[in-house]
């Protein structure tokens, strides 16, 4: 099953870091997401984009995982050469990841 069936996502930018929120539609799916969406897996999904490490914070009462993708924005919105310098579109890309 694709993550898109289970959760919605949003990215924000902070300097050269992208914040990536994953929010379960149904709180009962949170444990699955927490078990399978590790920081390592998210970093691997964005290999080629994320130059640094990935932090993960959990907010079980909101059914949410919060990732911080270090070195994800080619220097940050004010100087990046990327078409999407904010990394606004990165969130949708995660929706394709498989969840058992």
């Amino acid at each position, binding site marked *: 099953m694709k993550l898109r069936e289970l959760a919605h996502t949003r990215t924000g930018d902070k*300097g050269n870091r992208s914040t990536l929120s994953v*929010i379960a*539609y149904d709180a009962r799916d949170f444990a699955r997401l927490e078990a399978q969406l590790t920081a390592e897996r998210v970093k691997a999904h964005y290999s080629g984009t994320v130059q640094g490490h990935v932090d993960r914070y959990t907010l079980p009462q*909101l059914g949410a995982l*919060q990732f911080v993708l270090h070195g994800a924005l080619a220097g940050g*919105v*004010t100087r990046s*050469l990327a078409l999407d310098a904010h990394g606004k579109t990165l969130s949708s890309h995660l929706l394709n990841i498989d969840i058992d």
Partner: protein
Amino acid sequence: MNKNSIRIGAGAGYAGDRIPPAVELAQHGQLDYLVFECLAERTIALAQLERKQHPEKGFDPLLAERMRAVLPICLKQGTRIITNMGAANPSQAGREVLRVARELGLPDVKVAVVQGDDVLPRLLQDGLQLPLLDSDAPLASLQDRLISANAYLGADALLPALESDAQVIVCGRVADPAMFLAPLMHHFAWAANDWAKLGQGILVGHLLECAGQITGGYFADPGFKDVPNPARLGFPLAEVRSDGSAVITKVNGSGGCVNVATCTEQLLYEIENPARYLQPDVVADFSQVLLTPDGPDRVRATGASGQPRPDTLKVTVGYHDGFIGEGQMSYGGPGCVARGQLALELVRQRLQDAGLGGYEARYELIGVNSLIPQAQAIAEPDEVRLRVAVRTPTRREALLVANEVEALYTNGPAAGGGASKSVREVVAAAAVLVPREWAQPTVTVLDQGAAA
């Protein structure tokens, strides 16, 4: 005014934001305060450059238009306006508000101008050895390229303005949520060290500060997350009680939606460690926040807390960072990806021959790999758009990049069309932390005698 609860609305989430939803909110939101957040990271640096050219400018270019739209309504209803549209020139922005008021036949307006965020002189004098955040280099490494340095002031800088009888408060750089926290501290007389309440006030500000992003903007995904009447997306307001608990909602009949999903996305937007959201007034803790439904288009937000404020203030530093030359060209029909890739190779070779091969660059096809660089086309699209962007030290080289893409018309693969090109001077932003006493906020109340 009901002392146990106040209503704060968000009239803009960025400098270019839409004005009709702000008017709708001012008209029907029964607001005590309407806040316009209009300063992105480098906006002040750009405004500072403008002010150097034109000393009477350097504030938000939409200030007059926004004021014409909402000032008569807000004055009539007793809604006070708070905005950072002062950018690099808050005092001139204040005079501009008075000029608009006079033009509208509203002579009794008073405007409080908050200044003191500009710490560039102090940084040049005492701060060149400060380390840049997210870098190993000191501020001195940017010394000859600096444009601006503005500290994120806290709610404390706005309180004297709120204690005045000004109906409009204009500032430059103030932490975005602090523009919402300040009226709560003022109205409910929260102590400056009541960290739990300040944390809850920051939560309210953070939820509101991007305006439409909590009412269904930046949210719709048809079939998965549907948003009703999105073309007429309304802007949000919060009903906040004296204990800091709040309900996020919007005007009845406006487009969009406020639900737990929109609020959760906005709660986490641009937040790193949810337990430590650093603000000038408090280190807010969102880790235990609860968002619960409270009727149609109403969500209750509770559970934020806080720790004592940091000893330092964050300062955004704007600096010149070279140029970006960019060009785009479209290819369509069978073989469009192959022709796009051939075109990329031609441009890459030509720029290398011109001595530009060593510069940081992007060579990509929009429609295939411009958002995720390692992406591969699964099926051939009907069209692609080539994009080349190169960072160069000089304008001349940036123009060369742009021209080499345009030259694909007559010197590239078959059927390239719709070229566009641009040369941008880059104004980048970096940050340092400074002792908080380096920023000395002041408040000046202007009346019609001072109109622009």
